[in-house]
């Protein structure tokens, strides 16, 4: 199988280049990450992140044939040759397929992705009805791989000011949580022309999410809540 892989080592290379690589003995049930690990045996300097190898940790997100995804759950058999691998778009490249996710995490942190409760701590756990719990389905599963935010044109143009789909999905995850008591504070944090409203409903985020989540609908829910609150 033929591969074309983005290579850049800032200590050696003056600019990035695409490296052509061949891999023999690939099996039908092999995932892309398996192939990358084989390629790394050929060229040890090839760098990429990976950890769990089963789509749970979100480390090996990359741009695969022009589409963001996780290498470990992308079957080789589904990819057209030459398989072109690039780092996630829009973020600074550290080396080869590794990007600096600082901006992504900063936006995530800024939505306060944890429960804020003003009431005194109860003696037993904070209870939810099954219906209240159901509202968190499709929100809590995010693994922060960054595929959505780095496929979002609005995030490319304003990564410092626009929160991006991943952080906005988490903003809604805590707004939707019956146990959270900071609704007003959270909504206030999302006001202004940039943080939430740079979203133009392009829906690339929904298209690429490897977990099948829908940040666009979460953003819509936040807007609806804002409207309800302002009336």
């Amino acid at each position, binding site marked *: 199988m033929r591969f074309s892989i983005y290579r850049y080592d800032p200590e050696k290379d003056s600019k990035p280049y695409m490296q052509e690589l061949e891999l023999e003995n690939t099996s039908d049930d092999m995932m892309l990450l398996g192939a990358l690990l084989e390629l790394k045996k050929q060229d040890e300097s090839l760098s990429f992140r990976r950890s769990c190898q089963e789509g749970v940790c979100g480390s090996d997100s990359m741009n695969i044939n022009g589409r963001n995804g996780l290498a470990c759950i992308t079957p080789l058999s589904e990819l057209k040759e030459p398989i072109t691998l690039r780092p996630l778009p829009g973020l600074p490249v550290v080396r080869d397929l590794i990007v600096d996710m600082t901006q992504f995490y900063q936006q995530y942190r800024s939505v306060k992705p944890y429960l804020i409760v003003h009431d005194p701590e109860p003696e037993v756990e904070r209870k939810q009805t099954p219906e209240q719990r159901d509202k968190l389905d499709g929100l809590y599963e995010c693994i922060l791989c960054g595929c959505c935010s780095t496929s979002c044109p*609005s995030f490319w143009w304003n990564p410092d000011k626009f929160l991006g789909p991943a952080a906005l999905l988490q903003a809604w995850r805590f707004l939707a949580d019956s146990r959270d008591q900071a609704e007003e504070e959270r909504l206030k944090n999302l006001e202004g*022309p940039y943080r939430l*409203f740079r979203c*133009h409903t392009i829906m690339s985020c929904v298209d690429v999410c490897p977990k099948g989540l829908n940040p666009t609908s979460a953003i819509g829910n936040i*807007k609806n809540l804002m409207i309800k609150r*302002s009336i």
Partner: protein
Amino acid sequence: MRQISGLGSWIWQRISALYLALFLMYFISSFILLDRIDYNRWLEWNTHPVNSILLFIGFIMIMLHAWLGIKDVIMDYVHPVVARAVVLMFFALILIVCLVWASQTLMMAMLK
């Protein structure tokens, strides 16, 4: 001020879009329903009290919609503060001139 540029503009973009969609349907269907169209019929329709008010609101809505749209595009792509201010003022000026011109035309037609 923050309201205007965030939630406010988002809501107004939708209100103006809805108004224009409905108004355009009314506008086009009024002329389809006429058996023939000539200058006098056109003048008559546009200077009818109800129509002229709807048309004038339509002018405002189309300028508002264009302003909010172009502002979004400029905020996405034009980052240097001075360049952004110049481009925004350029479009604001064009839209204001268009609005004044359209209103003036309507007013003159009504005074005829």
